[in-house]
């Protein structure tokens, strides 16, 4: 049973806000929600982690509703360099780091 479900791909244009939603209906009480970004020929890079409500850092915002069965990664004013695959993970800690299929975001000029 997949822990997370994300759209396979999304397209956007430079300067737009992009929201990628991840479903995780079976999230456990102590699980965290984490998003990673992966560029071609590189390993994934940690973007943001949250447990509930909203988390914001210099790169993105993460919105988590009260039931925690989904989460939305928000990228403000994307640029071409934000073209990448974005992975949503639901895990307690590093021992549980199993990646889902990811969302391939393409930012167009």
């Amino acid at each position, binding site marked *: 049973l997949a822990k997370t479900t994300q759209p396979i791909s999304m397209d956007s244009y430079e300067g737009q806000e992009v929201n990628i939603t991840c479903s995780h209906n079976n999230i456990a009480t102590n699980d965290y929600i984490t998003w990673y970004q992966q560029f071609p*020929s590189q*390993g994934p890079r*940690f973007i943001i982690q949250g447990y509930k409500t909203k988390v914001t850092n210099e790169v993105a915002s993460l919105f988590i509703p009260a039931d925690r069965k989904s989460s939305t990664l928000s990228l403000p004013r994307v640029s071409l360099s934000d073209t990448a695959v974005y*992975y949503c993970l639901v895990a*307690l800690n*590093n021992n549980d*780091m199993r*990646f889902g299929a990811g969302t391939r975001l393409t930012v167009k000029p």
Partner: protein
Amino acid sequence: SAVISQKPSRDICQRGTSLTIQCQVDSQVTMMFWYRQQPGQSLTLIATANQGSEATYESGFVIDKFPISRPNLTFSTLTVSNMSPEDSSIYLCSVEGRTFNTEAFFGQGTRLTVV
């Protein structure tokens, strides 16, 4: 953050041979992880390697095929044994982060092609 160096960055190998991939970290870490990623696909966890204990393998991966060493807190190796073309993939090393529970740092990966 942690800086991870993986060697080799890529290799082309003959079937039936073995390749050892090295992962060097610039700081001491307890947990190191090895992943496999087919081109265009997501990452699959192969095993977790903690210093001082045997690696823990995920379902579908066995020690005879993917032996792992973890001699100290900054280094690990993954060997892909008796290779076949199906082993062609990108192999990634990662280490735990210290700021967040599910934070991990990844190497650049080793692109392996078996012919």
